[in-house]
């Protein structure tokens, strides 16, 4: 077996940055600091793009259903399996996204997520509380789950509030380390703060699905970026999540 890994090391001798690529990377670091938030926005943009793709697919699926007559329901099911819901399957940390997560913007016809990013998220620190195989099986069964992903996870795996809070602290610590920020219980001022949100266990364990869904609805942010917020000269009213 060791031989395999020696081969593996040798096989990667050719994977290295060329001089030009290094120059481009260094140049990007010097000239594109404004792009620092790009990846933070990317997730929301990607979900919106996926939702738009779903909307476009639906525009074609509905006439097809009507044309198919008595076979309409079968055709619709096929569309659900292969097209309408397929983007869920590519998001292994994001489960449960069928009915509640999108709302059509009437003026544009483009679907938008109803809830904030964390509503669809199960970070690794929580996955570690579950048996890995059972988690994979559960994820595979969640295409029709209708609610907040972590709530379904907690119920299925019987996670206690104490275990949950411990995992939440680990998650907060990882956010602090990765992004160099103070994690938040609820984003307050600009959309990028969604990236730094941690779970509110009092809400999650309230047992009140309506309250949970309302709490995690997407917000109307007064500013579009951290820079815009900073330029306003106002202090954030975000509630800080204490990691210790």
């Amino acid at each position, binding site marked *: *077996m060791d031989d*395999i*890994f020696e*081969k*593996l*090391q*040798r*096989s*990667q*001798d*050719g*994977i*290295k*940055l*060329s001089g030009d*690529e*290094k120059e*481009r*990377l*260094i140049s*990007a*670091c*010097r000239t*594109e*600091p404004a*792009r*620092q938030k*790009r*990846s933070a926005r*990317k*997730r929301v943009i*990607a979900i919106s793009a996926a939702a738009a793709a779903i909307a476009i697919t639906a525009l074609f699926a509905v006439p097809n259903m009507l044309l198919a007559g008595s076979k309409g329901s079968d055709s619709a099911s096929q569309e659900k399996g292969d097209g309408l819901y397929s*983007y869920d399957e*590519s*998001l*292994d*940390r*994001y489960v449960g996204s069928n009915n509640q997560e999108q709302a059509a913007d009437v003026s544009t016809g483009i679907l938008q997520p109803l809830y904030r990013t964390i509503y669809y998220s199960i970070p*690794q*620190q929580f996955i*570690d509380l579950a048996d*890995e195989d059972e988690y994979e099986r559960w994820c595979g069964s969640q295409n029709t789950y209708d609610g907040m992903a972590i709530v379904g996870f907690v119920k299925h795996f019987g996670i206690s509030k104490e275990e949950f809070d411990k995992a939440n602290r*680990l998650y907060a610590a*990882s956010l602090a*380390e*990765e*992004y*160099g*920020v*103070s994690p938040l219980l609820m984003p307050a001022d600009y959309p990028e*703060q969604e990236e*730094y949100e941690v779970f509110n266990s009092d809400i999650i364990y309230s047992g009140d699905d309506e309250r949970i869904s309302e709490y995690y609805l997407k917000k109307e942010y007064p500013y579009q970026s*951290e820079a815009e*917020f*900073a330029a306003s000269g106002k*202090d*954030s009213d*975000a509630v*800080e999540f204490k990691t210790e």
Partner: protein
Amino acid sequence: MPLEVIRLDPQRAENAVNAYGDSLLRLCSVMLGNREDALDAVQETFLKYMTKSPAFNDSEHEKAWLLRVASNECKDMLRMRRHSSLLSLDDIRDREPGAESEDDAQVLALLCSLDEKYRAVIQLHYVEGYKINEIAEILGITQAAVKKRLQRGREALRSMMEKEAE
């Protein structure tokens, strides 16, 4: 509470690209399966390094932080793009031919065909030389999960090698 942003000296970025760029490219290439996406992930990682990196204790701490950010960037890309896992070896190596044999290249192809979570731990352990507790830190998972993934990844590689040999 405004988010604090630590801005680094551009010279430090150049040093980091020279010191850690190849390691990041190898990890991202193995996780994403093609060079262009890997370069995007490496660039995003260095942009975060420029704007968000904390104070580092030493160069190992700095490298581990970069690998962790790169790994998360790859996971995000795998989630958000309907990513093709098809591997083009010529695509992920530099344009200049390497000294490795076809046999070595086959092992790399097999690694890239594994599930992403196995690829990352095998890459970090066997190629980058990290210990289990260090990989757990980098990937933000438990040591038990690292051991399990290493074991399953090894088994999968062995199984595929045996099939290839038949």
